[in-house]
């Protein structure tokens, strides 16, 4: 069993409250990604699990044992760092063998494990080289190898791909995913890149200002964001937001502002009771917008002016101005528009989200 339980964990620095009561249950063999902007407490949380930072309050359990006071070496974890942290004076082989040597494994066993890991990661040819002779991708493989030879209970990843170029990052992302499928070791992965979080995680934990905003499977986060922050953070291009007032007219509910009057779908309207007559933020993803045709009702579309059209081949990203607010729409590649052209955009009703203007929680 190597589940990880984090219970009401706080981290205070002298004048900074970095983690404000994080609770999280990570199941055995699960791949959990902590994601958020820099300074959100995700790395601090990971370092507390690793034992590199003391825990100010709360408990962390690995397996069924509280590890608060255990030294990093006694927690049976392995960590991969952003800057690889390879020992520069040792060969690749010695880098991978170091942890085993420290734990007094015999030579034959060390050789077997290192060679096996080198096989998996395709770095067999580099075993006798020093880290400085390797490329960034190879170094990160060595760092991964160093983690897997020990066969630990938990893998911790601290932004391991941030130092790689875009193409390599995508490649290594796939490798890490494959590695997890093969080894099925509980993994906790920290990143600021929501694409990495969505593609890698069995579950994703969105953090901000030392607090967990939402925990869920990637699609759940995408489809049902708990608040405006998660909605804006997950998905690329990011969700569009518009400030509106909630009004009741006849037996329908509308979200209105000077440029749009959008009919709130019925299942959401049922929950709008306490928000009527109050401001609310309307959220709509770029991919839920399309060029309006005659079939689009008046109250599910709005006018906008094209500012820039980015042709990506598979789609066109339109940067628009709708009244005062900037909007982004992702439309069919066949659409022909020019800058400054006035267009009308239709909304897919299932794509509409509403957030309380004050608390920012989803309605």
């Amino acid at each position, binding site marked *: 069993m190597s589940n990880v339980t984090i219970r009401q964990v706080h981290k205070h620095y002298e004048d900074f409250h970095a983690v404000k009561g994080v609770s999280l249950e990570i199941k055995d063999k699960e791949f959990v990604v902590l994601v958020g902007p820099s300074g959100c407490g995700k790395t601090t949380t990971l370092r507390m699990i*690793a*034992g*590199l930072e003391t825990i100010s309050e709360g408990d962390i359990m690995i397996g069924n044992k509280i590890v608060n006071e255990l*030294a*990093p*070496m006694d*927690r049976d*974890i*392995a*960590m991969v*760092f*952003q*800057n*690889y*942290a*390879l*020992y*520069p*004076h040792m060969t690749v082989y010695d880098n991978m063998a*170091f*942890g085993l040597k*420290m*734990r007094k494994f015999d030579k034959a066993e060390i050789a077997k494990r290192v060679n096996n890991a080198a096989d998996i990661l395709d770095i067999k040819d580099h075993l006798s080289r020093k*880290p*400085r002779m390797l490329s960034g991708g190879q*170094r990160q493989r060595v760092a991964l190898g*160093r983690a897997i030879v*020990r066969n630990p209970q938990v893998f911790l990843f601290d932004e391991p791909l941030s130092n790689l170029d875009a193409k390599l990052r995508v490649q290594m992302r796939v490798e890490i995913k494959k590695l997890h499928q093969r080894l099925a070791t509980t993994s906790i992965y920290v990143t600021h890149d929501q694409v990495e979080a969505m593609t890698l995680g069995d579950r994703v934990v969105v953090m901000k200002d030392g607090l967990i905003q939402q925990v869920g499977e990637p699609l759940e986060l995408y489809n049902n964001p708990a608040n405006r922050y998660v909605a804006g953070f997950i998905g690329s291009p990011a969700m569009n937001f518009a400030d509106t007032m909630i009004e009741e007219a006849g037996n329908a509910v509308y979200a209105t502002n000077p440029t749009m009057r959008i009919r709130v779908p019925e299942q959401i309207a049922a929950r709008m009771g306490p928000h009527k007559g109050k401001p609310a933020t309307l959220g709509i993803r770029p991919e839920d917008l399309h060029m309006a045709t005659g079939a689009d009702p008046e109250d599910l579309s709005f006018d906008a002016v094209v500012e820039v059209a980015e042709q990506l081949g598979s789609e066109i990203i339109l940067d628009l101005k709708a009244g005062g607010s900037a909007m982004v729409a992702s439309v069919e590649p066949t659409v022909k528009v020019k800058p400054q052209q006035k267009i009308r955009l239709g909304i897919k009703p299932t794509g509409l989200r509403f957030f309380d203007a004050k608390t920012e929680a989803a309605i």
Partner: protein
Amino acid sequence: MIEGAIWRRWVFFRLPMAIFLIFLLFPFYWMIITTFRPDGELYIPWYRANYKPFWTWNPTTAHLKYLFGETTFAIWMWNTTFIAVVATAISLFCGVLAGYALSRLNFRGAALLGTTIFVTYLVPQTLLFIPLSEIIRTYSLGDTPWSLILSYPTFLIPFCTWLMMGYFKSVPKELEECARIDGATRWQAMLYIIIPVAVPGILSAMIFAFTLSWNEFIYALVFLSSPEQKTVPVGVISELVRGDVFFWGPLMAGALFGSIPVAIAYSFFVEQYVSGVTGSVKG
């Protein structure tokens, strides 16, 4: 490199370089030529027709014979080596540990302590030797090598600590954290990871400390009195300058042989030394 016309390269690179080199190397040349020049040529007035200060056609080893035969120069060399090596070893040991502690163990007042240690390095030796000589006398260490071995660290340890502190700060802390996750204790992480990585820094601290103690003059002059206890810088000056008579030949021979060990130390470690002073460790 300077780019553009050939004359630019000469004016802005080669010529200044040549002047610089001559400026630096001329004292050594003068030392060597004086060592091998017979006395008859050494004390010739400058207005004589046969005055040739920069070259000699009658090289002699008389000064060397005098230096090694009539003075206790060999013993001075041994004294200097012994004192410099032991003082350097002590200072390096303390400096590496203190530098590590000040840069890595986040305890209250670490920064202040670091600064204070450096400030002690700035106290001039010409002031310190008076109280120190009192201490040396109290412990009856006068006229023994230990008077210097124990007083050199007063300025070598602050220096080594400061240099190592800077170097340890340039070693990514993840290296150590990774080692500790890998199963190393703090001591093991320091011994197997941090110190090997910091070798360039340690070497430059070593060369600096060795040179400083090799060349040190004032403590050696004050604390040592008998000729067979003296170090090279003091021995050469006190035994080869009698009254107002300078024995230039043996003096320069002594200076030449006195600078050879330092020159060798530098040339061996020059690469590590440069990377030690300029810092940077790549993972």
